[in-house]
């Protein structure tokens, strides 16, 4: 089932690269680290060099934001060469203990956070949540995401979705604790074998449900399902698309005010990889009082927050300012009160950066679902 028979060259179509350098030119990580993906694509051509290349720490700096893939004139995915090198390290077993533990946790407990599977639905406590039953048709089947399920800071995304769906009387259901990791970070960390296993198991599992569409709360799950799961029965959308559609159809509306300057930070996994830029903005503009600001580096040029690509488990060796801090400084310069995001990883990294810079009194980082939750009158802290 796996592509072991292909050579590295074939697998990543290294011959297709014309070494134009647009990839490295657009790579946000180069702002703070030495990562030169063009160079790696060039050097990887020599199969005998692969083991040596795999040992270079820079390969772990890639956030898998896909800017390089978006910019490549030949339609190649330079980042995948880096992921391929990571795979060599993974297969040797000699990885960072943090990476080891995260991957093992996905295998044993269905999430990378070393939490017990049995606790995955604990966030639902106290809420009136409709649970999906295999075979029972449902319009919107929600896929929560490991981080949103377990991390207290971002559980609000799921909780608020439940409240909004209930209030608006939309047909929906959530999966119980049998929901397993989509494998987004498993893929980017290079654990190919485990990722293939997840694709197989999750496809079978999700196809057991009868849903019009699967709605993901996280852009990571959204892109992973769309890019890597060819056999899913239902189509997969991101919640911003759902809410945007419901508003257009007149099935959802919200009132209430938020007199704030809000700048939207395009999550790489939603924008660059999913092409979704306008829906989140429309959702924000529909909130009365919101003055929507724009970063200079927006949409396809968004400055990656460095949450993806396995970065939650691997520290960069670079001592330069984290991109998330640069982003927050930009927001401060713009005079933004709120940095709005539509991704749990962006929430965590940007808020961390904001606290490190000491800006908590002047601004906050909020997921769109948190802002909408406030409007629906019972805010989830």
């Amino acid at each position, binding site marked *: 089932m796996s592509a072991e028979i292909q050579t590295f060259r074939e697998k990543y179509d290294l011959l297709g690269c014309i070494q134009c350098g647009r990839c490295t030119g657009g790579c946000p990580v180069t702002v703070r680290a030495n990562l030169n993906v063009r160079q790696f694509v060039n050097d990887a051509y020599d199969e005998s060099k692969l083991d040596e290349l795999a040992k270079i720490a820079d390969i772990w700096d890639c956030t898998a934001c896909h800017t390089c893939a978006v910019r490549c004139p030949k339609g190649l995915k330079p980042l995948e060469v880096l992921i391929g090198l990571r795979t060599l390290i993974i297969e040797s077993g000699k990885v960072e*203990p*943090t990476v080891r533990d995260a991957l093992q946790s996905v295998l044993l407990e269905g999430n990378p956070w070393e939490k017990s599977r049995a606790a995955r639905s604990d966030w639902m406590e106290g809420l009136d949540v409709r649970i999906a039953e295999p075979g029972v048709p449902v319009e919107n089947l929600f896929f929560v995401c490991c981080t949103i399920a377990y991390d207290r800071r971002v559980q609000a995304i799921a909780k608020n979705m439940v409240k909004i769906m209930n209030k608006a009387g939309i047909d929906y259901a959530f999966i119980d604790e049998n929901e397993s990791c989509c494998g987004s970070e498993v893929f980017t960390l290079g654990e190919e074998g485990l990722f293939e296993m997840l694709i197989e198991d999750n496809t079978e599992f999700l196809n057991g449900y009868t849903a019009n569409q699967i709605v993901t709360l996280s852009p990571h799950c959204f892109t992973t399902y769309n890019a890597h799961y060819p056999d899913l029965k239902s189509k997969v959308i991101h919640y911003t698309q759902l809410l945007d559609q419901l508003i257009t159809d007149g099935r959802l509306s919200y009132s209430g005010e938020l007199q704030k300057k809000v700048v939207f930070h395009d999550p790489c996994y939603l924008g660059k990889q999913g092409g979704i830029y306008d829906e989140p903005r429309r959702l924000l503009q529909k909130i009365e009082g919101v003055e929507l600001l724009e970063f200079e580096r927006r949409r396809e040029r968004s400055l990656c927050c460095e949450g993806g690509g396995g970065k939650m488990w691997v*520290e960069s060796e670079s001592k330069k300012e984290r991109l998330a801090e640069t982003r927050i400084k930009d927001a401060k310069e713009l005079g933004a009160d709120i940095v709005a995001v539509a991704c749990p990883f962006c929430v965590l990294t940007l808020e961390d950066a904001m*606290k490190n810079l000491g800006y908590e009194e002047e601004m906050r980082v909020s997921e769109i679902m948190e802002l909408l939750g406030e409007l629906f009158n019972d805010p989830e802290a």
Partner: protein
Amino acid sequence: MGNILVVAEHRQGLVRDITYEMLAIASGLAKEMDGEVITLAIGSGLDEVAKKIAGYGVKVMVIDDPLFADFNADKYQKVLSALIDDLKPALLMAGHTAQGVDFMPALAVEKKLPYVAETIALSYTDNQLKATRQLYSGKVNARLAFKQAATYLVTIREGAVEAPEPSSAASIEKIDSPLKEDLAYRKFVEYIEAEVGDVDITQSDILVSVGRGLKEDKNLPLIEELAAAIKADVAGSRAATDAGWIPHDRQVGTSGKSVKPKLYIALGISGAFQHIAGVKGAKIVVAVNKDPEAPIFSIADYAIVDDLFKIVPKLTEKLKELKG
């Protein structure tokens, strides 16, 4: 029923606290078991050690022989095996320590006698000896009953009880070693002292200690800032040192150091007994842990049930402010 034989633990001329703690437990049981407590000291050049122990009011039996110049679990086993046959004690007690666990289980198998490891309490009523020990890092207690036997074997957890105060000097009796020859198949080579790092935490006045709750070493600066604000040294539990966040010579616990600061701040440490045993000497203990059932709270003077990341930054800030 019979006497209680306590195997003294000593090293490099010093008597370890567990010896006295066992005497406290044994003395409590002796009446019920209708016997007396005898401490057994095995070693070489033991005059000082024997005198020290005898000062706690319990008779000391000494085997003093160059054969036992260095600790050797197999030699201890041979001696104890012979003494069980000769003296027929009702209860044989050793510390649940690196020494004790190296010979007691083997002795139990060899003599086919009932054995309970890491006991924290013992009781003897109606001819029935029962032991209490713990499972799941102290979250559950287990009560075990020994089936009838001529001798019972137990190892006792360090720090389970307070050591008694010295009292009157009891008698010291030297006996011959039942073991006459060296054992070729197991040899002591040497001791290697623990690395002495830049800070000797056993001498620190204030310690800020971290455990598993730190999550990763990139969170250390937070802790270091707190420590700097109050001129504390940073230490850690075994989880923190195994993970490489804190150097080994700053590990607090039974396999690390015993500390006696006037203030011990435990952050994200669950408080497994191996750790708590190392904190016995602290005057004031502050514990921050998000698990309300964390055993660390049982030794804390001040407790905050919360995520350390929510507490530490503000704590540091406020301390800096108040100290000016």
